[in-house]
Structures are given as structure tokens and as C-alpha cells.
């Protein structure tokens, strides 16, 4: 409350006048023209950015950032689906990469003995060798049986006899093997 009588009314009058004047002044001023006259470069030159940055606590700022939460919100699948892998691969110069790879050095670092142990190369070689040996043995035996048949056939032909009724082998042995394997249809004529 004003100490003078009628002070309140005077005060209200002054305020209303001031508001009116300020309103008129603002309306009269062209803000854009005023801003256009301001030399921003000179203004910025006066600002000490380093001093401002030095006052910012970057670590504190980072600490307050919840990175996990940000990552959770990132849809990686969506990002990956938008990546054109073919285009990236096309831009990769594979030949150049290969040229830069020292193959000799890589080979020197490979433990051949361990590799052989893991791949059981020795077993493979042994199997292959035994397979060849077995094949050769089968061949020799088959040739022998074939020649036996040939000779027996000619002997029977020269002696003008038929071996149809002759036993193929010891009766008990042939019968036992016929049970174990399939029934034999061999006759003496085959021998």
C-alpha cells in the first residue's frame, strides 16, 4: 500500500501507462531488422567456447546416460535388413585382401602332427592300403579258381566223363556252409 493518500490509484495509472507505452514501442520496433543489424560473428567471437566446455562435466553427463536402455531400444534386425550386403561385398576387393595374406606364415603356424592325429589320416591310409591289398588278393584267388575250373573242364572233356553227380566238397562241410550262407546251386559240372 502507498504511504501517500491516493497513492494506489497513481501507481495503477503509471503501470497502465507503462504497459501501453511498452506495447506501442514493441509494435513500432521491427525485430527482424534489429536482429539483422546485430554482428553475430563479432558476438560469437566474444564467446569463450572452451571456457564453457571446460565447465561441462562430460563424465558426469555420460554416467547419467543409460546405454543399455538405448541399446535395448535399437532394433538391430531392422537395421540389418536395411543393409545391402551384396552391395558391400561387391565393393570388397577380395583379390587385394588375399594378396595381403601371408599364406606361408599361416601354414608354418599349423601343427600338422596335431592335424593328422585329429583326422586319423594314418587310419585312412591303412584302410586304403589294406583295401588295395585285399583287392589284389581277391584277384589272384579268383584267377586261381577260374583256372581250376578251366583245367577240370578240359580233363573231363578229354576223359569223356560227366562230373554232374560228383560231390562239390566234403558232405558235412558243404552242408554246414549251405546252412550258414545261402543254399549252393553249384554242381560238379561247374567245377
Amino acid at each position: 500500500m502507498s504511504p501517500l493518500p491516493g497513492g494506489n490509484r497513481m501507481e495503477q495509472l503509471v503501470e497502465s501507462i507503462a504497459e501501453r507505452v511498452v506495447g506501442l514501442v514493441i509494435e513500432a520496433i521491427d525485430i527482424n531488422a534489429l536482429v539483422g543489424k546485430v554482428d553475430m560473428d563479432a558476438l560469437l567471437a566474444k564467446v569463450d567456447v572452451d571456457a564453457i566446455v571446460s565447465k561441462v562435466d562430460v563424465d558426469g553427463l555420460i554416467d547419467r546416460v543409460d546405454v543399455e536402455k538405448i541399446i535395448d531400444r535399437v532394433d538391430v534386425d531392422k537395421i540389418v535388413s536395411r543393409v545391402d550386403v551384396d552391395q558391400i561385398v561387391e565393393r570388397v576387393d577380395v583379390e587385394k585382401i588375399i594378396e595381403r595374406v601371408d599364406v606361408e606364415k599361416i601354414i608354418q603356424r599349423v601343427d600338422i602332427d596335431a592335424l593328422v592325429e585329429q583326422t586319423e589320416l594314418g587310419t585312412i591310409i591303412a584302410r586304403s592300403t589294406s583295401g588295395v591289398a585285399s583287392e589284389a588278393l581277391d584277384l589272384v584267388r579268383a584267377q586261381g579258381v577260374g583256372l581250376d575250373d578251366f583245367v577240370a573242364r578240359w580233363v573231363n572233356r578229354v576223359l569223356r566223363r560227366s562230373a554232374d553227380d560228383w560231390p562239390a566238397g566234403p558232405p558235412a562241410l558243404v552242408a554246414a556252409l549251405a546252412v550258414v550262407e545261402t543254399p549252393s546251386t553249384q554242381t560238379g559240372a561247374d567245377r
Partner: protein
Amino acid sequence: MSAPPVVPASPIAGRQGNYAGGVTRLVAFAADVGASWGAFTLSLAGITFAIQLVTGTKIDLTQGRFSALFVVVAFVGWEFVYFAYQWALSGKTVGMALLGIRVVTTEGDAISGRQAVIRTVALPMSFLFFGLGFLGILLNKDRHAWHDRLARTVVVYSWDARAARLRWLARQDPVAPL
């Protein structure tokens, strides 16, 4: 898509237990003679070298009447052991195992040690009269040689030709069902 190769049926499949023919037996015998001769010669060379090493004098066991007699007796003994021991043990010698044949009784059972000894002793008899004793292998229905008849044994194929044929087929086409 090409058609699978046509594989003719093998005439030798399923011969296990059949009487073995003359050619197979002859080749097996030749292999045994080679193996026993080789082993004997190597042993003789080893003994000669050992004696030379110990005594310091060079010797030749084939020279001199006594040495030659010793070598002949040793050779006969070695041949006897070579055949008799292997026949008694498994019914087959090294050569017979290679050719896939074995000695069994006339009934088809494993031969005894006695039969193995008789067969070994009688074997030289088959060589008499220009090998007349072996003629039975070609002429007899049970393919008996003289030493077989004396020992009451026969020689049969022990080689499983059917399994060999399956192995051969498997090698031709590993993915084909047998």
C-alpha cells in the same frame, strides 16, 4: 542319369568248402616252397654271419661233406616243421592262406596233429614217378593226391568268394545297397 553298370554273376561265388583245384594248389605249394626256402636261406646266412662274427674265421656251410650234410638235414627238418606245424595249427600254410585254401579231414573237420605229420611225411611220395601222386588232384572226384589219401585229408577252398564279390561291388558303387 546313367544306368548302373551291369555286373555279370560270378561263377566262383559260393565256393567255400568245395574241393580245391590243381592250379590253386600248385601255386600255393610254389609260394610255400619260396617262403620256406627264403626263410631257410636267410637263417643260414644269419648263422654263418654270427659264427664269423664270434670266431673271426670265414666259413661256408655249403662246402665240405659234413657241412653239406648238416645243411641238407637241417633243410629237411625245417621243411618238415614248416608244413607239419602250420597244418596242425590251422590247416593251412602261408601259401595256402594266400590262395585261400586249407586242409581238412575227408569229413570236413579240422585235421589232427597226427594227420598233419602223416601228410607232411607222405608229401614227398607224391613226387615219385614224375609226380604221379599228384595226378589224382586232376582225375579223382574228391581231388585226392597220394599224401591226401594216406592222411585221410582233402584240400578245400576256405576263401569266401561271395564276400570278396560283395567287397568288389561295394568298391564299384559305395552308395549302392548290397
